[in-house]
């Protein structure tokens, strides 16, 4: 099968035709071959890559499955997602990661890379069989207890050391558990007024600081999940200046939302780590712009309606992210002049693919590359409607808001999994 995407705008501003043959790009330039899909006015980026996705399967299929999460990913322009380990059972064995990997293959809408748990049952006590997961068919390279922090410094040190044998990375959910017992939202002026137990920035920053020093000491690779504080950005900036091998991510929601939204007590804004202050948001944007923060990751966290339709303290932490991520990054970073489209491709595709070692993702749009592409209309605004999302859950805090840069087509290994805004029902076999 050969087709041509015509009159596309590249992120550098040039106009090209892209010819795709089976799963590969064969020509980028003026050549036309096969069926022509007119893409005038549209912009092409390498398919987006998410390093932080909760697909909930196995165990919580009422919130999301690998298939429904893959659909949401495709609609959001992602050609790869990374399934977090906090499933039930926990993805702490080769068997579970292979199951998730196989479900991803069967869905066929994007690559699904399982993330393995660092410790058995996410309990933080014994290191899981990381080598077995690395050697499995799922080829796991990222390990994380996300949702929980690897808080024991000795466990963290050993995990960092151990993954060096197969080029792995530990993705840390930085949250000191003692400083956040019962915590409900960012600790500050708003939490004090609302009478909600505070979640101090220092609980995140203390772990980041410790882990940076550990990673330096054992010369291993550390990735900081969902950075949310100004102080955390400073710590990562310092670490990079010292040549320490640390990468960091920020979520779209932490680039846009602040803790004053909690004044409504609507648990749609309840998330871990919590929404912070405006000063933190500014620091995160600046950090993403100057490269201190390497990537945007969604922390897509689906929950069933009843887990949000209740009082704040009883509600679950987390919000959807896959289908709104690109729009929020464009709204907060491109429209503000902090990032150009080339940098958007870096932080949402090229860099995450590099951190995860995802060889078919985040490739340059040149002949020979795998045809993993997202094609967007940068000028098109759309209104987020939670009832129109492909995710099985509805817990988006962005319902009703207008976002730029709508995803028009998503091409996964040469196959149009999304065409003209809609899932095609086609998949990569």
């Amino acid at each position, binding site marked *: 099968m050969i087709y041509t995407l015509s009159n596309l705008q590249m992120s550098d501003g040039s106009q090209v035709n892209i010819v795709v043959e089976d799963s590969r790009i064969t020509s980028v330039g003026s050549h036309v071959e096969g069926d022509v899909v007119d893409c005038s006015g549209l912009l092409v980026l390498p398919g987006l890559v998410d390093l932080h996705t909760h697909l909930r399967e196995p165990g919580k299929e009422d919130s999301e499955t690998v298939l429904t999460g893959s659909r949401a990913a495709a609609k959001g322009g992602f050609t790869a997602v990374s399934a977090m380990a906090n499933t039930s059972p926990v993805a702490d064995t080769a068997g579970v990661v292979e199951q998730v990997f196989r479900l991803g293959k069967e869905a066929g809408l994007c690559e699904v890379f399982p993330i393995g748990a660092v410790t058995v049952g996410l309990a933080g006590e014994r290191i899981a069989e990381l080598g077995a997961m690395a050697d499995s068919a799922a080829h796991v390279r990222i390990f994380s207890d996300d949702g929980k922090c690897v808080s024991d410094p000795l466990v963290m040190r050993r995990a960092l050391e151990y993954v060096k044998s197969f080029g792995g990375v530990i993705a840390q959910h930085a949250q000191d558990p003692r400083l956040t017992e019962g915590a409900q939202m960012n600790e500050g002026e708003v*939490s004090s007024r609302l*009478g909600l137990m505070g979640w101090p920035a220092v609980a995140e920053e203390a772990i980041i600081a410790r882990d940076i020093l550990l990673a330096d000491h054992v010369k291993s690779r550390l990735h900081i999940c969902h950075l949310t504080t100004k102080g955390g950005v400073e710590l990562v900036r310092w670490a990079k200046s010292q040549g320490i091998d640390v990468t960091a991510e920020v979520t779209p929601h932490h680039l846009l939302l602040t803790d004053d939204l909690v004044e409504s007590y609507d648990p749609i804004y309840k998330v871990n780590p919590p929404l912070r202050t405006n000063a933190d948001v500014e620091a995160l944007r600046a950090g993403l712009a100057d490269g201190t923060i390497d990537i945007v990751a969604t922390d897509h966290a689906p929950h069933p309606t009843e887990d949000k339709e209740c009082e704040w303290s009883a509600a679950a932490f987390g919000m959807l992210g896959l289908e709104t991520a690109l729009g929020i990054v464009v709204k907060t970073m491109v429209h503000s002049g902090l990032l150009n489209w080339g940098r958007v491709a870096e932080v949402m595709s090229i860099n995450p693919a590099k951190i995860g070692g995802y060889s078919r993702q985040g490739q340059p749009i040149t002949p020979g590359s795998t045809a993993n592409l997202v094609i967007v209309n940068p000028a098109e605004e759309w209104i987020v409607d939670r009832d129109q999302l492909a995710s099985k859950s509805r817990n988006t805090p962005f319902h009703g808001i207008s976002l730029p840069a709508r995803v028009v087509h998503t091409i996964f290994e040469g196959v149009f999994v999304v065409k003209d805004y809609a899932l095609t029902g086609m998949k990569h076999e």
Partner: protein
Amino acid sequence: MKNQLLSINDLSHSDVLSILSTAAELEKITDGPTKKLPTLRGRTVVNLFFEDSTRTRISFETAAKRLSADVINFSAKGSSVSKGESLKDTAQTLQAMGADAVVIRHGSSGAAQRLADSGWISATVINAGDGTHEHPTQALLDAFTISKRFPDRKGDLTGLKVAIVGDILHSRVARSNVLLLTKLGAHVTLIAPPTLLPVGVESWPVDVTYNMDESLELFDVVMMLRIQLERMTNFFIPSEREYSRRYGLNEDRLRRMKTDAIVMHPGPMNRGLEISASSADSGRSVIVDQVGNGVLTRMAVLYLLLGGVALTEDAK
């Protein structure tokens, strides 16, 4: 006035004065042998208590009954967070039963607002204490009690010096009182160890001190808060004895207060811990008055929120 009372912020200055004067009016009317008014006959008030609080429930129950409302006590302790019925289902049940007002006490901050904003129920929602957020009717009854002890001020508390002493961090009573008393012009000072003050308290319209003995002789009102015994296990205070020595109201401190200064406590008291028996029972203490004033203030709130006919007409 809004048709719900979730926070003191729901009340304008004139709303507050109207509640206080209505409470005073109700006191006059119900002072005789007949304590009951027919005003809310046929209306249903539900006391929805997710937390045990016999005092607050009885106070609301008495208030509603004195206005001739039908009262349903719905004790739902532990039914929301633990396995069982959700707040939503409970609300819809009460809606189906035709509740006109729901008085809600809940351990989760914001639960009252959640109930009012959710669209699950159309009844008037009155917050009877939500987590560590607010307890607006307690603040109203405190303001009413203060006004009665300083009658010349006629509800204007401008310049009155009020100290609130104790566990500010976890106190819904303190939050509501700070909002209300400052709205009425009072000058509020919070006295607590740093561990029991919220982060960001600098932005509150109050003075803060860690030292109880620094300026005790300046206050017109000293409001003592209950200290929960579990605060010890989370390192907020080293021991009961130390807390009592540094922040307890004892006879020495009582003696140093201004001659006409009063002592308040929202109850229930830990006698011998935050307040000595002699202070609680002294002539300065208005703690028992607070209980009676609680009924009158809650009558005024129910009366005004449920749109009872104008009081003077009714009374005549």
